[in-house]
């Protein structure tokens, strides 16, 4: 009996999480799928009514904007955070004197709730109040930085604030990864005459592939769920130019009492995630297996 227990302990350790995931993730996804086929309004109802919610969704210009923004925002946000996070981690890895302090400075934006930080960013980015006014005040009257109020550019300010908030965490993640690489191997590369940047690019970074997966998942999650960020910074505006699926969904579900619609947008969102994440997961987990 104890032997059985012992042999199965690893599986048993994983089992509760697995069951929880089945219920609280996949069960709920199924529930959402179901609700997306109903005319649920304020509260969920369960009479199936076909694909009407999806028709409505695809007819809505606001959803088009939100959906398109997801790719602009997601792509830029993930890309910039990765590159910046990695770059900062590498720079911080050079035996910096005040590493602890700098690390905390880079990381602290994570600590601040966007509810308020959004206001600060709003002021900084506002052409009349913030950077633009300041630089113009220094005697560069042609300086212009008005993305926040430009419907075509506003989404990039969301990227900017998003990167500001999350890149520090990605940096920490990469730093942890960098520090798990065996020092002897780095020494070997140094003697081999490999320039430092090549040591990073060809030896250290490839051995951190799993850490990249972590960073990617975290960032993708943040990108897809970016909500506070948009609400606090632009409120989705100008107009609904910076709407994202998450804000769309929230608006539908909770401001507008249109849960069926929210559910259908959630399903589309998850389908997108599925299409992007699954191939990545597949390649990543396969490589590790051989």
């Amino acid at each position: 009996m104890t032997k059985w227990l012992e042999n199965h302990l690893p599986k048993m350790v994983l089992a509760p999480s697995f069951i929880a995931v089945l219920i609280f993730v996949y069960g709920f996804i199924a529930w959402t799928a179901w609700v997306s086929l109903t005319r649920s309004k304020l509260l969920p109802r369960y009479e199936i009514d076909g694909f009407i919610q999806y028709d409505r969704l695809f007819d809505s210009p606001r959803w088009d904007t939100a959906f398109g923004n997801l790719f602009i925002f997601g792509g830029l946000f993930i890309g910039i955070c990765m590159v910046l996070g990695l770059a900062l981690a590498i720079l911080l890895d050079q035996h910096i004197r005040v590493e602890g302090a700098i690390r905390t400075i880079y990381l602290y934006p994570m600590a601040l709730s966007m509810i308020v930080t959004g206001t600060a960013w709003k002021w900084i980015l506002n052409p009349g109040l913030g950077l633009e006014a300041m630089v113009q005040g220094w005697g560069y009257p042609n300086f212009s930085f008005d993305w926040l109020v430009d419907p075509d550019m506003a989404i990039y300010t969301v990227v900017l604030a998003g990167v500001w908030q999350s890149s520090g965490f990605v940096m920490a993640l990469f730093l942890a990864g960098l520090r798990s690489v065996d020092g002897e191997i780095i020494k070997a590369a140094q003697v081999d005459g490999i320039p430092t940047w090549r040591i990073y690019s060809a030896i250290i970074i490839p051995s951190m592939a799993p850490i990249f997966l972590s960073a990617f998942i975290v960032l993708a999650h943040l990108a897809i769920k970016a909500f506070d960020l948009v609400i606090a910074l632009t409120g989705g505006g100008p107009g609904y130019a910076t709407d994202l699926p998450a804000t769309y969904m929230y608006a539908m579900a909770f401001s507008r009492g249109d849960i069926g619609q929210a559910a259908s947008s959630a399903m589309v969102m998850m389908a997108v995630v599925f299409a992007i994440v699954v191939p990545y997961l597949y390649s990543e987990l396969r490589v590790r297996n051989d």
Partner: protein
Amino acid sequence: MAPILDISKLQKSYGATHVLKDINVQIDEGDFLVLVGPSGCGKSTLLNCIAGLEPITGGSIHIGGRDMTHVSPKDRDIAMVFQSYALYPTMSVAKNITFGMKVRGVDQATQEAKLADVARQLQIEKLLNRRPGQLSGGQRQRVAMGRALVRDPKLFLFDEPLSNLDAKLRVEMRSEIKKLHHSMNASIVYVTHDQIEAMTLATKIVVLKDGVVQQIGSPSEIYNKPANLFVADFMGSPAMNLIPARAEPEGGATRIEIDREGAAPIILHDPHASGLPRDIILGLRPEDIAEAGFRAGEDVQEAQCLVDMVEPAGADTYVMSRLGGTGVTARLHAETIARPGEQMTLAFDLGKVSYFEPGTGTRLN
């Protein structure tokens, strides 16, 4: 010409652990320097310092006449094989080996030629597509070798590069290294604990102990004229017999008396020695003690000894006896018939003897 490597007054500490103490070593171009010493004496640390992988605490290192004390490893133009292999885990064997060349912009064709060449030498042709994690210990070590061999540096540093290979492969590899040394006139610093490797490869041996250089010399100097008791004891396997004895001047020669269990002391006469103190330690290698009749020469002197233990070892048989209060080993032919507890006449070749002062351990002759 300036020496290719000039280490002077080198000091190295890890915190409070003082690992290398005032090391002074020069090697010329084409020298093959072998570093030997007991485990933990600082051999790897010394290589690391030469490579610039560990900051040094004092002294200086010149390579090819340039002061390299503060130059980064990648600019020192050295190749190194690590004791712990340190292969790049994510790269295939082939990439591990060619990576250095690729970075240096060596063209593809040369890379492949060199790779093929080295892979053949190291007998790892079939493994080129594997990852280090899929290799056996010896295979990893050979890949690590390969990484150094494809380079053409000013100086090679090898840290026990053959320790995980079987005897046969080791002999082959040894001769590959020897060839390399000759054909490229390479300068090499080599750490090994294999005496045969040390003796056959080196042009110069450095014996280290606790971070202090004990002796620097050619293999035969080290083997035949150890500078002190430590070197005498350390080099050679089985070790040199170090037998406490009494010396007394006898004209221009010396009379030597060695205590023997249950019998009168053995008396030997060394015509070449003189001016020895009364108490000495006499060093004689096992192969210089032979079965009576099997060794001829003017300095060979015989004595009866009580056999303590007999250990056959393939090609040889070792016979142990107690003399002067310590165990003395003689290396005899495999077919020697000796039995513990019996008396046996052994021949001591005094032409090969070393004398040491018991207190300081320094050589006297």
